């Protein structure tokens, strides 16, 4: 009995320890001495890896999600003969919710896992240790550029996703199902507010970008340096990122709807 309680305590302490370590790690990453001239090309390269290479996935899934929303929304709205509200339905659900959340989930799967695997492999092959030997700061050279690249890429990807998805909904609703184009746009414009809907969606995506990249680089940097360890770290990245995204989404939505 006592042993079980002891084990529980151990798990709790372990958890606190890990949270603390990751927090300190994050602070160290953010507050590196900024040497901008040499830092920008490094971030550029990572934005290419993290953002540009994710673009195809984001655009394609955005298009299809918009299209399926258009189709589903139309069949439901038709029951109330309110097809003209399709634009509003598609735009609000995408800009407020689906855009940031699905982009974050795809980002965790596409870019987060790649970040973890890359850093994990560097750790396993002792590249990071040898950088320290050469007096090159690995946090500055390897981790910080990836962190900032993730933070920058996520809102950009989200905005692109939202725009593409709304056009997907437009294509199905207007092009295929015969909703009036003028009604589609005018209802959409009347209901979408820049501050309340679009800016809040972007705020969400910034938070998700922060969390997903943080988890990815932390898991990579603190991986068990074996083949199995890297595999496990990659899985953890995707699972934790997705869970964190969904939970935080609820919290953020509650705060935003609560007039915060």
């Amino acid at each position, binding site marked *: 009995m006592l042993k079980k309680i002891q084990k529980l305590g151990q798990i709790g302490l372990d958890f606190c320890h890990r949270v603390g370590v990751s927090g300190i790690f994050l602070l160290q990453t953010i507050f590196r001495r900024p040497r901008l001239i040499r830092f920008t090309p490094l971030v550029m390269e990572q*934005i*290419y890896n993290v953002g540009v290479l994710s673009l195809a996935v984001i655009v394609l899934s955005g298009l299809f999600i918009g299209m399926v929303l258009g189709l589903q929304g139309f069949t439901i709205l038709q029951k109330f003969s309110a097809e003209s509200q399709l634009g509003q339905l598609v735009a609000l659900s995408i800009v407020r919710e689906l855009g940031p959340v699905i982009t974050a989930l795809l980002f965790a799967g596409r870019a987060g896992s790649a970040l973890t695997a890359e850093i994990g492999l560097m750790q396993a092959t002792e590249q990071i240790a040898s950088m320290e030997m050469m007096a090159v700061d690995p946090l500055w050279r390897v981790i910080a550029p990836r962190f900032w690249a993730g933070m920058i890429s996520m809102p*950009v*990807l989200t905005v692109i996703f939202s725009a593409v998805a*709304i056009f997907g909904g437009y294509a199905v609703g207007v092009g295929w199902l015969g909703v009036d184009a003028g009604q589609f746009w005018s209802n959409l414009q009347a209901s979408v507010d820049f501050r309340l809907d*679009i800016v809040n969606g972007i705020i969400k995506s910034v938070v998700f970008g922060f969390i997903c990249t943080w988890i990815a680089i932390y898991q990579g940097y603190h991986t068990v340096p074996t083949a199995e360890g890297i595999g496990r770290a990659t899985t953890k990245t995707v699972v934790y990122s997705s869970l964190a995204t969904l939970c935080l989404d609820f919290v953020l939505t509650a705060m935003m709807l609560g007039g915060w």
Partner: protein
Amino acid sequence: MFNKRILEIVVGLFMLAGLGALFVLAFKMSSLSQYSGAETYQVTAFFDDIGDLKVRAPVTISGVRVGEVADIILDPKVMRAKVVLLIDKKEDILPADTSAKILTAGLIGANYISLIPGYDNEIMKDGSVITETQPAIILENLIGQLMYQLKDKKEKK
């Protein structure tokens, strides 16, 4: 690793695509661009009851949108709702005796303000006040009145 220049160009294009998408979202999909800043002038109107009127509700003349509601407050002196309207500079031909009423779009739609131009030779300027207003029609009040009338009729018989 491949050419650095190409990489930078691609990243630049990526950021541009993001900015472009934000632009589309901001100007094509939300009503941000209209009625702000120097292109409008302010007119105030007092209402007995504004119903469900909200800030940013449209202001129309015979159905054409000419402005929007900028602010709604309760005036402490006269205890009536004070509604500030922003009207497009292009419509600076409104006669000074223009009246305003609050209407509902469709049966369950949102409230908006309709202006009915008068016949005065003077025109409205920035800061003018619309004196003649008609409050929003509240469905519950209407039903209440109707019920009383029906009751009265029954008693008369």
